[in-house]
């Protein structure tokens, strides 16, 4: 993914200014560490919203608590920085209240799969028309480096000083079996790939789950580093059929060499459509 032609900073700045995607960024400087993978998600989301011409006042970015969850402050859209683990139910409430809004939920691996783990199946099975972007760095960064539900076995942190012995979750397999209607995986080190998938996820009608593999450059020097991820990630097979759930599950089972791309997509009734049907059956307005 290294560009072949030299890129000059001034040209790039001009290009970014003219693209309009800076309009989606707030004046606040991100609080993330230099080199953090999360910058590419900010860039990717701003890009996608700009390309899709979604008005920023009709966009709500909802987050929980954690490094990733600081995200809404760096966007010039409506934002709701909620409680640890609760981004999805809050986002569900916002979408149910106003279907016109584009609602993006953002969170990290601890926020989503530890404390908030009980909400993911339900957002997925209800097919709430929101996009959930989960930044997975396998560590609790904001509390300065503790083991997370996606940390590898053998990973040493301040709360696993004798190495982690708990098996990590497989988020993609979970989401596929929960009935998420769009499941993709990308990598913070591949910003163009990331931006493309964010756009697809936003376009999907229904619950879209985008898993972003990302390093924590400050607290993880050994496991999920850019160097290690660059060596292990690969693109999904070019003949992958994203309408085949069994195939998607098979691909998701390969955790040694994580495949990036769209695993699975299907169309079914969203929560909003279901509620409209309920209203019809109840005889709304009659």
């Amino acid at each position: 993914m290294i560009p072949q032609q030299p890129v000059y900073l001034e040209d790039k700045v001009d290009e970014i200014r003219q693209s309009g995607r800076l309009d989606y960024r707030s004046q606040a400087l991100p609080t993330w560490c230099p080199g953090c993978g999360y910058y590419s998600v900010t860039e990717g989301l701003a890009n996608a919203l700009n390309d899709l011409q979604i008005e920023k006042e009709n966009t709500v970015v909802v987050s929980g608590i954690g490094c990733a969850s600081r995200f809404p402050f760096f966007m010039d859209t409506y934002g709701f920085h909620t409680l640890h683990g609760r981004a999805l139910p809050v986002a569900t409430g916002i979408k149910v209240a106003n279907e016109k809004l584009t609602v993006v939920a953002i969170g990290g691996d601890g926020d989503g799969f530890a404390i908030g783990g009980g909400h993911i199946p339900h957002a997925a099975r209800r097919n709430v028309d929101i996009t959930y972007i989960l930044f997975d760095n396998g560590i609790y960064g904001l509390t300065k480096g503790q083991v997370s539900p996606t940390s590898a076995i053998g990973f040493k942190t301040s709360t696993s000083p004798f190495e982690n012995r708990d098996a990590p979750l497989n988020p993609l397999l979970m989401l596929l079996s929960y009935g998420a209607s769009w499941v993709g995986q990308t990598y913070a080190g591949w910003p163009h790939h990331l931006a493309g998938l964010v756009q697809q996820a936003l376009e999907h009608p229904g619950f879209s789950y985008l898993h972003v593999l990302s390093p924590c450059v400050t607290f993880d020097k050994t496991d999920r580093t850019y160097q290690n991820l660059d060596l292990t990630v690969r693109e999904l097979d070019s003949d992958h059929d994203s309408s085949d759930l069994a195939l998607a599950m098979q691909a998701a089972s390969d955790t040694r060499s994580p495949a990036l791309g769209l695993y699975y997509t299907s169309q079914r009734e969203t929560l909003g459509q279901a509620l409209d049907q309920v209203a019809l059956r109840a005889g709304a307005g009659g």
Partner: protein
Amino acid sequence: MAYDTDIQISICGSAGDGTIAVGDIFKRAMAHIGYRVIAFDQYPAEIRGFGKCIARTRVATSRVYSMKGYSDVLVSLNDLHAIPHVGEVRNYGALIYDSAPMSAVAEGAHISGHLKPGHIPYALPMREVSELATGANRSRNFVALGFVAGLYQLPQDAFHHAIAAKFESKAAAVTKSALAAFDSGFEAGAASYQFDDVRIDAPRGRKSTHEARMMTGNGAIVQGCLDAGIETFFGYPITPATGIMEHLAVEMPRHGGRLVQTEDEIAAISAAIGAGYAGSRAATATSGPGLSLMTEMMGLGVMAEVPVVIFVSQRGGPSTGLPTKTEQSDLNLAVWGGHGDARRIVLAPTNVEGCRRCAGRAFEIAEQFQVPVIVLVDLYLSNRYETVFLQDENEFLPKNWKPATTPGAGYRRYELTTDGVSPRCIPGEAGGIHTATGLEHDEYGNPSDNSGTHSLMTQKRHEKLQAAIKHPGINFTKRFGDSGKVEVGLLTWGSSFGEALEAMLLAQQEGIRCAAMKVVMLSPFPVRSVLRFYKDCQQILVPELNYTGQFAKLLTSEIALPVTRISHATGAPLDVANLVEAIRRAARKHRRRHNAA
């Protein structure tokens, strides 16, 4: 006597006897005739099995405020369950029971062996009458109901009407056999000589301009939600609040509202806060265990200044406690629960009409002050029926909040204003972009741990609520009884106020100067009006349904003056007779002191 007619009838049976069903028909028929009715049913916690069911209905020609501590009539459909309740029948009250049970019963197992001197028995072969009238023994309950109606010469057509309405959706044969059983019972009742002194006179002619309806506290909450134009509801089933969600699930979709049953109470309040943030009139409903789970998210609602309404129906606690019994032990949790200085608004209606009013006003108050509002009731109020006279359905104000005067780059979502209320924008409004957060923040909503900011913002979040005490359309305190200086004052809240008021009326008849005040707004506390009442009373009694005196403690923390607690934690409502005794004692004490001085 204060009332021309004021009787309480209890029908007691086993689950499956149709006890609650005939109790329901009785209260609806009586309300239809024009009586004021209060009814409270007791069910077992289990759905199947042979648990005890009691349907108690109080019927009066004037307004009454609570159930009576005794019954005038007890109908037994199952002696095993009814025997422990024989004692609640007053002297010269009636006991109606089956004289021809299904099979032979041991001497002590039949209710006739448990009557007290002064009880008037009516032995009715319910099973035989049912079999003769319908060909089956399943209609004993209607035979008994008919007997009561016949014995006390109640208008037969009102019951026919109520029975037909009850079985409207069932097959015609069901209505037919119920009516046949009722009529046979009625005939038997009319042919019986009345030995008891229970009198049910015709109601007074005074008719309200509003339609009289039988409604529970939960039903009234639903009505208030609908009248206020509720748009979104998120809930998780829990006794005794489930009825609110079930009823809204039917009604909301018809009225353009949306309801989602969430995965737990945390998700319910989270989604409601999300919906409130997005500008809809949003609510959830739960009981104590659910409220425990919701406290963290309520704190976010306070911090991010998001309107949301939370209906809480208390039951016995702690932990799973007594799911089908009443208690007022979640006041501390509702008023103080959660971490940080997180004052919210808590309203506690005292009767069924109050449930509707508080529900509707809660949406207005939440919006106007941008804060979570809890409407706190309990199982006794949630489930008890009262005749209510429905007010104007357009009584409540439409959605409204302080708009942004300078939208755009200079927009400050958490602007420090003189009244503490900031201009609010919701997603979709171009000039109002901001990020709401649970972090302490400056006027723009940007995170800030500056000490000056924290103290100013904390002050704003608290001070803005003071004006809620003046919100129109609702009495946050109300005084009843003698005016001016009194010997004894009762100060209480929620469902217990009904018993307190009844006790006060009885004590007045005994020549005791007394008054009662209900406190409907628990947070922020209406200190001034409570203090004024306090100063008029020589003795203050604070009866409530909990062990630790949660309201008394709230009261003394707000007014810093002593009160006498009457705490009662049995899972049942207060006993009016005991309260009257407490008033007498307090009055005697006061008089002794007065005479000594």
